[in-house]
């Protein structure tokens, strides 16, 4: 059978002022019609550049240096730019990651879709609008007629991604390239979008190149898989073969780094490290069921002000009646989709936000009424690690100063020589070199920065760390390092975590207890195994079924 799209020995370079990056090195693969081909890899592995090379949409600094891209036997790299314009859209379409920025905010949705149709096909305007309506119906928009006359900001992220798909499909392409189409979406919406793509593909019979870093998604959609690293394809296999027995060590390592319920109590595998089968039994601190932190009927409402006098006309009920208990040495996971108020809970506990109502006690001490000096002493017990490792470190301060800052502010250690010593010890603890002290944050990668954040939190010897999605901005293998570190610290120091996340696989790996949040309230709360295996509430069931599960054989 003749393959639809054939890529031979493709290489792409990015030329920077000082050096040349070989973003894609000698990549070859084929995609057949009706087939889903997944390109998997971590950030910087060259998967997006490969996709852009195929559609010839590379930025100016990047150049294709060798190879060919054959679509139906036609070499796309030999085409002129004008010929390429008709190929893009009618033969090859792309969907990008960010549905918020891929649509023009000042043009109505219907017009945006029709625009590309009129450009590529000889079709009358009314006919194009009629087809547009069909397409929007096909991608599952509930009220296609109305949606056509709306502007992008009036629709949610999931709906916008559906519209992007509709635009991509408008001209019946032979090949659809989807570059991380669901990464910016919540799991339940991700599930809908994946299902939609699958359905449309079987109807139209197009080839689909699916680019992602998420192996769970890959298993759900892909027929064949290529794993990329440092610009090269290290392994190509069919989906069944790959998940049954990955051949390349890097593929194995990627699979092992994914946290899951089966790996509870084990360390996740990291590059060059053997998996140790340690169990909970050698834990130094045994949890004595001491209630460390109690949150009772927490309410956080944000006032909506209007008019000249800024009168309060209503409230956004971000958090409504949330109650939680955290025990010493345990991990409580707070799970929910974006906008459910889970971060607000975390920030309220460390008193970064003013709470509206409710009680919070830490070791029997009332947190809500604390003020001034007492609040400051209490801050050393409760610390927070944020999601984005790039914005949570001051770019103008040395790493040593950053870690030291909390100790100085809270008066943990007055002597500066001793402080320096503690900083060194902390860096060692989070597995960073000692000379990191005298460097600036921009010299570190995302995972290293997150470890600096953890070291900074540890510096004031807290009893509870609130982890606000600490790994969601990181690659799986880096995520594994951070999760291992958190686990080790819990064993060594008896740390308690309130782990805020949307990622069920992390929850199932790490959490002792789980609280599921939905629209500001907790809908289900209980032991991790109970909640994950026998969910009671409708929303929890929906959430769990939406998560792409990785079945390893």
């Amino acid at each position, binding site marked *: 059978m003749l393959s639809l799209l054939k890529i031979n020995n493709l290489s792409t370079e990015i030329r920077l002022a000082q050096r040349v990056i070989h973003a894609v090195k000698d990549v070859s693969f084929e995609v057949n019609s009706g087939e889903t081909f997944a390109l998997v890899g971590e950030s910087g592995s060259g998967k997006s550049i490969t996709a852009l090379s195929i559609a010839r949409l590379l930025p100016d600094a990047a150049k294709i240096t060798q190879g060919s891209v054959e679509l139906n036997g036609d070499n796309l790299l030999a085409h002129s730019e004008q010929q390429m314009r008709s190929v893009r859209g009618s033969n090859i379409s792309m969907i990008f990651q960010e549905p918020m920025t891929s649509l023009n905010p000042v043009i109505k949705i219907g017009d945006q879709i029709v625009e590309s149709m009129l450009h590529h096909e000889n079709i009358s305007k009314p006919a194009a609008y009629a087809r547009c309506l069909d397409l929007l119906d096909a991608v599952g928009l509930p009220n296609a007629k109305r949606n056509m006359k709306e502007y992008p900001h009036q629709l949610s992220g999931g709906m916008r991604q559906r519209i992007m798909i509709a635009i991509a499909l408008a001209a019946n392409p032979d090949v659809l390239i989807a570059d991380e189409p669901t990464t910016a979406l919540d799991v339940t919406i991700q599930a809908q979008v994946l299902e939609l793509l699958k359905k449309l593909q079987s109807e139209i019979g197009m080839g689909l190149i699916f680019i992602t870093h998420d192996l769970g998604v890959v298993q759900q959609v892909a027929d064949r898989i290529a794993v990329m690293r440092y610009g090269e394809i290290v392994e190509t296999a069919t989906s069944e073969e790959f998940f049954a027995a990955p051949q390349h060590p890097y593929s194995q390592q990627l699979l092992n780094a994914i946290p899951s319920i089966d790996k509870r109590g084990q360390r996740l595998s990291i590059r060059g490290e053997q998996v140790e089968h340690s169990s909970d039994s050698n834990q130094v601190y045994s949890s004595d069921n001491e209630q460390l932190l109690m949150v009772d009927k927490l309410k956080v409402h944000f006032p909506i002000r209007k008019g000249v006098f800024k009168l309060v006309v209503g409230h956004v009920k971000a958090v409504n009646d949330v109650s939680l208990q955290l025990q010493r040495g345990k991990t409580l996971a707070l799970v929910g989709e974006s906008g459910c108020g889970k971060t607000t809970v975390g920030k309220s506990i460390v008193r*970064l936000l003013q709470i509206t109502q409710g009680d919070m006690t830490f070791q029997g001490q009332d947190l809500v009424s604390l003020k001034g000096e007492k609040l400051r002493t209490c801050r*050393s017990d409760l*610390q927070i690690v944020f999601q984005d490792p790039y*914005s*949570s470190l001051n770019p*103008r301060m040395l790493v040593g100063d950053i870690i030291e*800052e909390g100790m100085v*502010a809270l008066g943990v250690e007055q002597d500066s020589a001793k402080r320096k010593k503690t900083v060194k010890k902390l860096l060692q603890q989070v597995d960073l070199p000692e000379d990191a002290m005298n460097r600036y944050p921009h010299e570190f990668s995302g995972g290293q920065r997150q470890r600096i*954040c953890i070291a900074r939190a540890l510096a004031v010897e807290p009893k509870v760390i609130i982890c606000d999605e600490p790994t969601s901005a990181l690659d799986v293998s880096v995520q594994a390092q951070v999760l291992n570190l958190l686990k080790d610290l819990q064993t060594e120091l008896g740390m308690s975590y309130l782990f805020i996340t949307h990622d069920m696989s992390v929850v199932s790996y790490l959490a002792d207890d789980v609280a599921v949040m939905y629209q500001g309230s907790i809908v289900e709360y209980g032991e991790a195994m109970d909640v994950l295996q026998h969910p009671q509430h409708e929303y929890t069931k929906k959430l769990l079924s939406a998560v792409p599960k990785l079945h390893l054989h």
Partner: protein
Amino acid sequence: MPFQPVILITDALFFVLTALLVMFIIFARKREHISRPWRKVFKRSTGAVSLVVLLSYYSIAVLDSMHFNPRLDNATSEEAQYSNEILSVLDILMTPMRTQVEKTFSAPLATHLLSKEMVQQADGAMQQIYPRLKYGGAHLDNIAQDKVADIAMLVLLGCFYAVITWSLIWLLICIIYSKKIKQSLSESLARLFSASHEFPVRAIAVTTGIVIAVISISMVVGSYYHLFGTDKVGQDVFYQAIKSIRTGILIGTLTTIVMLPVAITLGAMAGFFRGWVDDVIQYLYTTLNSIPGVLLIAASILLVQIYISNNEESFNSLVERADIRLLFLCLILGITSWTGLCRLLRAETFKLREMEYIQAATAFGVTKFRILTRHVMPNFMHIVLITVALDFSGLVLAEAVLSYINIGVDPATNSWGNMINQARLEMARDPVVWWSLTAAFVFMFTLVLFANLFADVVRDALDPRVSGDK
């Protein structure tokens, strides 16, 4: 001692500013994240070239800010007596131009006055002629024959001095560079001037060459001729234009140090504390912004003038009086110009206070003052630097406009604005006196042009939104 130093208030402030600048350079050199964008500025040839030009202006201003009273040659008294006249180092360097005062107008490089006068001849007869200048071209015997050749000779002489000075300077740089890279002199010379050098050395060398040539030619020619002619009272126009540099630079820089503390504190406070603090500061700057600036400046300059005339005894000389007025002009310009920067910084602080590292600092119980000084301020400094660079040229031009409508610096102070103001009437004369205006224009234009070019490069290098790794 042959002189007695005099430090005017603006001198003191100017030196403090220079010291701060030097301290910043030393401070930044050790900190990679601060010096990196600045290196980018010097790597662009536009940046390096404009910096050389700006530095030459700046050093003239520094020389002109070192004031003193010269000692009087008074052999009879035991004690040293000092003149009341206040001179600067620049005045000494430009002595012939300062002292060679003609009777009235003369054209650039002229040997005769501009207009005819009744002169008594040797035989006693009165005659209407163009009289010879006292100084300009006075050494020539046969003017018609020798003048062009003489000027050409002087230009050549100037070029000769320039070549020697330029070569000496670059030899010195080369020797220092060869010590640094531990190579032979010829090797380091080749490396320094190779096209692939990290910094645009060739462009810098050409610019310094041009600057040195201009200075030395005008010094040599200026000692025998009036380069830009003379004004109504016979003063050398070139000398006036050079003396105006200090005024321009001072207005551009001192205003900034008046404005910066206010803009930074209020902007950061408004953005960080929000609530009523923000309201008060916002009302303050919207109110101030809605008063026409010229009105405010005119009113306060009038006040200062009245104060000076009521307290004449407290000022020793005209120079000091003019200096006070200059200082107040800087102050009032500073007061009217902080609002723009304050608004920018308030918006930036709004953004920064939501950054997670600031929330983390709050979670550590770091005091608000410390968060402001350690976390907020260093992170908006690039905006401050960009604004200062952009505002500088605007302030130099503002001085000219204000002096033109007589609410600028003291009429006795040399400034481009005053020169233009005086030239206004002279433009109507026949034959037209165009050189005052031209001289002021050329010097101001060069300064503002290079300040603008420099500001552009600084913005490109410092603004995170435009600085991609190209």
